[in-house]
């Protein structure tokens, strides 16, 4: 009787529970480990051909729709791990050649370059992809290719600002706009990339002066996301905001009638048309260095950049397609064509650190 509750019993219970915990997780584990599991040497090929593993920082439901369509057409299953881009790069780095990731997808050119610099990507060799995506939207060594672009532009109050008053990003830092400019916080990658583009185009000093000027002109301290800036225009907190175009598309098609109203009351202005062009952000996909399902992965890239998927993508997200053949939504057609910044997207990644330092320095919250 005394022995009944010995320490040994406790230990055994503990072990049993741990084993149980292990077993409990095994269904998911076998499911996920499948592409790489036992049959690797022998029957591998048939099993292996059916999968692509993706590390992705894009979280749109429209992406899943495209993936499902791909699986339907080819029978290749897609596994996803979602996360923040930098975390995923860190993970691939640490996993080294054992990584399960075949593709890396993210929403910023700078991060794609960061992944490349960290040596987790390899060139994508496919004529089809080269045909689908213009050279400017691909990495110089094809380590990654663009999937979609989004312009970061100036949005204004239609009732208080005439488009003629607007010209360049640089002008937003002038005294004309004192107390009228809205932007989200400097933790936003979009703001960092925008500033990085100025470091490249105008030099570090001018970029810092610009950031300082914007901070001086803020209508309020940065807060919220891009949509919140549009709402602040509607609420007359400020007159102009720095915003990504696709948010305007999403607001105009929102289920919330009030958001639609806000979307209708703001105008989209593509700045710097006479100078350096509007700033573009790129969403892209990279092939991982140790991809184990390389052929399938390339098939997927070909599909994603093809006409059909590009149409699906832009209809769902109001981003600009990289493939000219895609059908654009009506709104994007209305905006027409515009001049964009002509620079290597890799530069955005190179200058990102500098941009963050500047943002810290000028006190852009």
């Amino acid at each position, binding site marked *: 009787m005394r022995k009944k509750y010995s320490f040994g019993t406790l230990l055994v219970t503990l072990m049993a529970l741990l084993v149980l915990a292990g077993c409990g997780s095994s269904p998911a584990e076998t499911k996920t480990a499948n592409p790489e599991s036992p049959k690797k040497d022998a029957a591998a090929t048939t099993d292996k051909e059916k999968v692509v593993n993706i590390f992705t920082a894009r979280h749109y439901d429209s992406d899943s729709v495209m993936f499902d369509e791909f699986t339907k057409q080819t029978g290749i299953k897609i596994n996803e*791990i979602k996360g*923040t881009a930098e975390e995923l790069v*860190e993970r691939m780095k640490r996993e080294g050649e054992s990584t399960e990731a075949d593709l890396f997808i993210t929403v910023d050119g700078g991060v794609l370059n960061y992944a490349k610099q960290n040596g987790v990507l390899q060139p994508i060799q496919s004529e089809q992809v080269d045909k689908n995506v213009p050279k400017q939207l691909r990495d110089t060594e094809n380590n990654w290719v663009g999937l979609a672009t989004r312009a970061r532009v100036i949005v204004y109050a239609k009732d208080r600002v005439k488009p003629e008053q607007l010209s360049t990003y640089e002008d937003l830092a002038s005294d004309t706009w004192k107390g009228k400019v809205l932007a989200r916080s400097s933790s936003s990658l979009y703001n960092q990339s925008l500033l990085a583009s100025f470091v490249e185009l105008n030099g570090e000093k001018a970029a810092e002066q610009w950031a300082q000027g914007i901070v001086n002109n803020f209508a309020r301290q*940065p*807060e919220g996301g891009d949509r919140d800036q549009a709402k*602040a225009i509607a609420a*007359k907190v400020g007159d102009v905001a720095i915003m990504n175009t696709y948010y305007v598309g999403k607001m105009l098609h929102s289920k919330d009638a009030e958001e639609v109203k806000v979307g209708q009351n703001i105008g989209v202005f593509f700045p710097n048309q006479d100078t350096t062009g509007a700033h573009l952000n790129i969403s892209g996909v990279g092939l991982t260095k140790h991809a184990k399902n390389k052929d399938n992965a390339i098939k997927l890239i070909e599909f994603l950049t093809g006409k059909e998927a590009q149409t699906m993508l832009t209809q769902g997200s109001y981003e600009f397609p990289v493939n000219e053949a895609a059908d654009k939504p009506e709104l994007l057609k209305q905006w027409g064509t515009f001049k964009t910044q002509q620079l290597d997207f890799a530069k955005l990644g190179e200058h990102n*650190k500098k941009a963050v330092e500047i943002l810290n320095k000028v006190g852009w919250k």
Partner: protein
Amino acid sequence: MSSVSVIVRNLKRHMNGWVALSVLGAFVALLPSLYIFIGLFQQPNDNWQHVKEYVLKDSVIQSLWLVLGTGTFTVVIGVTLAWLVAAYDFPLRRFFNWAFVLPLAIPPYIAAYTYGSMLSYTGSIQTFMRNTLGSTPNQSYFDIMSMKGAIFIFTLFLFPYVYLITKTFLEQQSSAFIENARLLGKNSLHIFFKIVLPLSQVAIIGGASLVAFEVLNDFGVTKHFGISSFTTAIFKTWFGMYDVETAIRLAAWLMSIIIGLFVVERLLRKRKRYNSPTSKMNPLKRRKLRGFPAYAALFLSILIFSLSFLIPVVQLIIWATWTYQDVLNAKFAELVANTLSVSILSIVVLMLFAVIAANVSRASRRSTFTLILTKLLAMGYSIPGAVLSIGVLAVFISLDSQLSGLYLWLGWGTNKLVLSMSLIMLMFAYVIRFLAVGFNAVEAGFEKIGTRYSEASRLLGMGMTRTFFKVDLPLIKGALLTGCILVFMEIVKELPLTLLLRPFNFETLATKTYQYASDEQIHQAAVPSLFIIAVGMLSVFVYHWLGEKHSK
């Protein structure tokens, strides 16, 4: 006598299976933290200079404001409500008794997005004023995305930590003191300030420190509201300057600060332990409030409950009716199942370690050795989730490469990433991250029953293990359940660890909610948010029901 010899002596005196197991547990739990901590001793790179110059001071000040503001208000609200519910009877008291725990089911970042949208220009309140009343109010009245707003959000959704721990303490522990004071004719105010507050100091500090850790670790609220807290600085350094090293160095500093807080907390409560002087534990007898005080209590309760639960939930339900058709599908059922299974498995392991560690800590009467041991065990709570996840990843990947021979022998092929591609890694991270929550609850339970029962048992010749099962376990059952519930809700809400450490295709309710919310699709986020809240509500309800049954 040197402290080393004291430690050695203590070690010898208390060395048994319990201690061995907690040492082992502490060691394993410590590995990722150690990895982070080593960052402090490496040569800093150039970025560190920049961070020190432009980032550090501001982020420390902002974090301090957050912690002090939230700490003060959670204690005021938590203790007031705990005292009200424990000591008085007023209309709907039985409902509020457990309803005040419900805000815990709402992750602060969801609350922040919800309140942010609700109070925004297109939110329900301003829309109503504009379209129905025809007035456009001053925007600054509605500007919740600020320091004040963040404190508001954190207070409303974290005060239950203080409430729950203080209430449990007051109900079961304080009756002798309070009844005596009442007999001696002291009025309520006097009793509250002179007896309740000092008496429940340990519980209050315990609850408040949980609140402080939550605030220091938060990323969702601070990022959305544009507050440069310590954690936002870590992320900005990592994601913006692409500098993991400096980010880890910042995290190591944050960790050191929090360990400092731990020590201060411990010193504060070292000499202040109030166990009931008699062995009989009489629950506190509640007094019935009548007239004005009863209405005031009811009003206060309704106000807090509405702000911290009812209003945001109703808003989420409205949004959910707009979007449920797009969001609810077969995959959604999988989300729920994933969330539940991974939480429950993790809790079982976690609570086991919590109980072992707390029992060791108590039996050794808080010697320096066990003090350090248990604090190390709880250290995971002090590291921001995303940074901890890097530590965990590093440990698991190296473990996997050590074990690759074994995998080969088992016929699993040359696949090197077995553990780090499995749920075990995520569960491991949960256990380290939330051990402190479980441990605090169990420790509070031990604190409440004191040591005389187990001392008696040991005196009568029972071993530590037998004493534990026969004497202690039945007495701390309530505390154990509290721990389980708190940990459960934490895991269901947890985000950064889940985002980074989950296996392929493993989505939980939290990751799905975050995905929508961070893409500014708050309306779509409503459905998974409501599920998280429902899971939390259910566990609060079960806990309450068990508690009622137990007390009868």
